[in-house]
């Protein structure tokens, strides 16, 4: 084969490839296009990674958290985050911590009065009960240690934890006023805080889709009645409604049931917005020719709704669902914060934030605000993701 022939062949192949690529672009389904556009949205991609990470942590929470919800230590109340060291006496020995807990200072009377004076000079009050850090013996951090037992994914019994130390305790994010590890509680609390919005959204999704489509498809009196109901529900401030509804939850029911009830409460109020979106879309799609054609062909109402109309605006629904999750997270947090949501022994980020209820507590233990960081992070991530998805779902962008 001569050289120009080869060249032409190569060029032809290249053109062919480009054409296939172009064709793929034009033939890609709506979802593929959305995914592609979403991938280009930097913030949305980052949010997706962060959320993925948070959910994986929640899934394997029992394994990743060094302690469980009930472990406490009277000598470890309100400890600041434990410092992790690597070098000991000029030598690298791997990550380790020093044991640190509340204890009574052993000192003579003279020493004590001197310390007292010094403290008063600095404007502080002196107490012999102090956090004592034992800097003589490094406690090495061990990987895959045995601790309290739990069930992996609720199936297999195990007592393995990712890390831990022997002969002391490690508090990566400090401890609370009962001497419980905040790090473990944030991880275990995320199992509630991250799943309630999801479950709640799912319920509102079903409710909103069902009621909204009935309202939009049939119109007339049915629509009128449903719209009035939605208006009434929207006219009530939702937080007092949550308060009223959660006051109806009987005290002392098992955590799982309580969890479900709170989810239901959140979604009972959350569905109206979605129902409106669905209704609006139905109203505009109802008069489209392809719906009319399906109806003339004798397709049943239900089938028209499910097969012809819903797929037409599914992407919008998913977007408004994603954007609805943050308000559910904040709702759950607010309820738990007020003591109306999840109750001990179960925990959530809102419950943890109860410790941050007064200013003096924050001033003396600033680490009690750490759960706030996770709430904000999650809400932001969902907002950015929803924003990115909205852009991606818009065919004109």
């Amino acid at each position, binding site marked *: 084969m001569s050289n120009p022939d080869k060249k032409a062949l190569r060029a032809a192949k290249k053109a062919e490839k480009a054409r296939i690529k172009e064709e793929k672009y034009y033939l890609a389904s709506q979802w593929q296009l959305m995914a592609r556009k979403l991938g280009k949205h930097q913030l949305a991609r980052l949010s997706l990674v962060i959320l993925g990470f948070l959910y994986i942590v929640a899934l394997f929470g029992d394994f990743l958290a060094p302690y469980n919800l009930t472990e406490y230590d009277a000598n470890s109340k309100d400890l600041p985050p434990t410092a992790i060291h690597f070098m000991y006496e000029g030598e690298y020995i791997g990550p380790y911590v020093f044991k640190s807990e509340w204890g009574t200072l052993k000192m003579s009377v003279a020493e004590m009065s001197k310390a007292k004076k010094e403290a008063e000079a600095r404007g502080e009050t002196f107490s012999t009960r102090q956090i004592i850090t034992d800097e003589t013996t490094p406690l090495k951090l061990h990987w895959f240690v045995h601790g309290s037992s739990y069930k992996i994914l609720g199936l297999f019994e195990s007592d393995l934890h990712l890390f831990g130390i022997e002969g002391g305790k490690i508090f990566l994010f400090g401890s609370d006023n009962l001497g419980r590890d905040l790090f473990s509680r944030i991880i275990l609390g995320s199992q509630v805080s991250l799943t309630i919005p999801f479950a709640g959204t799912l319920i509102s999704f079903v409710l909103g889709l069902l009621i909204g489509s009935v309202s939009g498809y049939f119109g007339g009196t049915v629509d009128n009645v449903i719209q*009035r*109901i939605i*208006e*009434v*529900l*929207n*006219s*009530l*401030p*939702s*937080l*007092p*409604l949550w*308060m*009223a*509804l959660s*006051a*109806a939850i*009987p005290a002392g029911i098992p955590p799982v049931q309580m969890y479900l009830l709170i989810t239901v409460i959140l979604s009972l109020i959350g569905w109206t917005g979605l129902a409106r979106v669905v209704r609006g879309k139905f109203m505009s799609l109802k008069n489209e020719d392809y719906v009319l054609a399906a109806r003339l062909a004798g397709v049943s109402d239900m089938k028209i709704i499910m097969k012809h109309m819903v797929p037409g605006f599914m992407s919008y629904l998913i977007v408004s669902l994603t954007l609805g999750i*943050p308000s559910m997270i*904040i709702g759950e*947090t*607010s309820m738990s*914060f*007020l003591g109306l949501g999840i109750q001990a022994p179960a925990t959530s980020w809102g419950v943890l*934030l109860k410790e*941050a*209820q007064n*200013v*003096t507590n*924050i*001033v003396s233990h600033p680490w009690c*605000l750490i759960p*706030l960081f996770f*709430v*904000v992070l999650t*809400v*932001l991530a969902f*907002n*950015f993701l929803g924003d990115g998805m909205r852009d991606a779902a818009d065919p004109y962008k």
Partner: protein
Amino acid sequence: MGSYIWKRVLTFIPILLIMSLVIFFIIQLPPGDYLTSYVAGLKAEGQIVDESEMDSLKERYGLDQPWFVQYFKWMWGILTRFDFGYSFDYEKPVWPVIAEVLPMTIVVSIATMLFNYLFGIPIGIYSAVHQYSVGDYCFTLVGFLGMAVPNFLFAILLMYGTYIWTGTAFIGLYSNEILLGLQQGTLQWYDLLLRGDFWGRMAIPIIVIGTSGTCGTLRSMRAQMLDELGRNYVLCARAKGVSERRIIYKYCLRAALNPTVSGLSGVLSHIFNGSTISAIVMNLQLVGPRLYSALKAQDMYLAGTILLVMGFLIVLGTLLSDIMLAWLDPRIRFSGRRAE
């Protein structure tokens, strides 16, 4: 226009009635009633309770009747005598209990709403007109953060901040001086509106309650404005030689205000939510904390009336926003007229 307003007003009457029914149904949902929880409290303290006295009290307040009978009696009282029932907890009629805090709640709500719109709308416009500028990025970041921080936690952060800066913790809506004046009757709530020190103190609650709503307004205003700026009529106006300023303010703004105005009742509801929980955290003398304690104590008429008043105000907000929408957008005005 007049008949359009009249029609909207009429549709709100059934809404208010249904709303009152829903409210009453929800607040009677928790098992037991005020007396049973009161008795349980007394017993827990070791006091002896006379059962027959309780029964007679129950009968007197009608607590032994089914809930809908109680509802109709309550509604009847409201409609015929403007009597909202009796607060068990305060041991006096409901209305005076609410009237103590209602004016200030409305003042705070209106001030917050003004804050919301005065900041949200101009910043939203700025962000849209200068899309992808440094300012836009900053406001976008602030907007998202403001929406992400639950406002009770924002309250705590602000209280923490003022504590660090000024050394005193911010508690309550009134300074001691004002509080004294209010208690002695030398000051009325409306006197406060002219006092600078009162508004200085109000700033924190307004910021706390209003920030998330403001950020929401900002975001939706920006999105809407961008939408309008991309429309063909903008191009057409530009081709006529109309200046950018005029295009933005005459054409785009008016159209872009639509969702913001129709979201007015949502903003109001948001403010009530925010003020309820923030007022509890910050110890503000507003309706919210009273509602909270009334719900906890199952002081049902008080709770029901507060919810009804909030609902009424929100419905009023919806009415106002509908009227404003009709004024803004001729299409709505006309479809309203045609519907008759």
